[in-house]
């Protein structure tokens, strides 16, 4: 036919069986080879990355929770410590008050006791002094009287008389 040259890709034979086989073989071999050396490893590494990202996200979430937990713990610990400190201070204050009270009362009692003992001492000293003066006065009186009366009256009578007189004087004193 004179129009044959217009047929696209015309070839002399009906079909190129060899081309079909070669096309198939080349494509299949290429696919298998690439799967082995290129696509397989590449897919593997992409898979690996996916897993890595997932695990990273997971661990980040976990550590976030952990830190949250820690923060919570710290916060409660702080609160506890503050409470404890407050009670300690309060206790100390209370104790201080108590001690102050005690010390004051003890001091007061001591002072009272000292004063009392002093008073007593004074009393006994006074007593003693009075007694001594009294003895002195008696002997002086006796001496004076004996000088006055000479030997008319016995010493015993005199003494009894004088003592009576002094006792009377002491009462009025």
């Amino acid at each position, binding site marked *: 036919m004179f129009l044959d040259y217009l047929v696209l890709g015309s070839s002399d034979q009906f*079909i190129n069986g*060899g*081309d079909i086989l070669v096309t198939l073989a080349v494509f299949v071999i290429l696919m298998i080879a690439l799967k082995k050396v290129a696509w397989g490893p590449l897919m593997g590494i992409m898979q690996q990355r996916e897993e890595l990202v997932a695990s990273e996200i997971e661990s980040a979430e976990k550590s976030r929770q952990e830190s949250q937990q820690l923060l919570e713990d710290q916060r409660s610990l702080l609160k506890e410590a503050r409470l404890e400190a407050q009670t300690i201070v309060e206790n100390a204050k209370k104790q201080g008050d108590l001690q102050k009270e005690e010390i004051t009362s003890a001091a007061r009692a001591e002072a009272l006791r000292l004063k009392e003992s002093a008073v007593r001492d004074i009393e006994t000293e006074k007593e003693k002094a009075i007694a001594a003066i009294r003895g002195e006065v008696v002997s002086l009186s006796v001496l004076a009287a004996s000088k006055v009366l000479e030997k008319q009256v016995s010493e015993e009578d005199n003494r009894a008389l004088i003592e009576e007189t002094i006792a009377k004087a002491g009462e009025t004193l």
Partner: protein
Amino acid sequence: MQHKNPHEELWGLSYNPGNVLMLVVAAVIVFLIAYISTRNLKLKPTGMQNFMEWVMDFVKGIISSNMDWKTGGKFHILGITLLMFIFVSNILGLPFSVVIYGELWWKSPTADPVVTMTLAVMIIVLSNYYGVKAKGIKGYLGSFAKPMFFLFPLKIIEEFANTLTLGLRLYGNIYAGEILLGLLAGLGTMWGGLGFFAAVIPTMVWQGFSIFIGSIQAFIFVMLTMVYMSHKVSEDH
């Protein structure tokens, strides 16, 4: 611009050594690109690994737009290989073509209908195979009578129409691109070299457009592959 194809016979099979050469060249280029870019894989991707991962995600996107990843995951490798192989094949004929003794040796392998139809038939056969595998013989045959029984002849025709359109669309686009490039190259040698000035700008424009067509056709081929696969494999179509 009509060149003869080289033609030889081996063991009773006739074949075109030009096609064989170009198929092998395309396969080697694809293999080298993939091989070199997947050396030294890292969790933190750099350079070519980024590109390869982008291609993988791209094909994954094509598959995911047609079926869920659980059924479609097994077509991932097929899709990537198809995409890169067809793209490289489409581009191969762009920079130049080599004609020796009137026989065309260097060209895009996808500018030959036998090659593209082989790929198309392979895809359709694979889709039917996976259809049987996914639904069983009964479900597979039953899918031809859906949604109405009288659509059965149309369903049969559809299979062949799909095959033809899938293969011939690719072939037509690439072959037409090469024919026009051949014409422009012919113009460039006319008028004692003056034609070069007339041809250089249209040639550049057409080569750029052909790169675009080549990538679009590779994308369409993979896209339709996944569409046909999902028709056969998924239940809800």
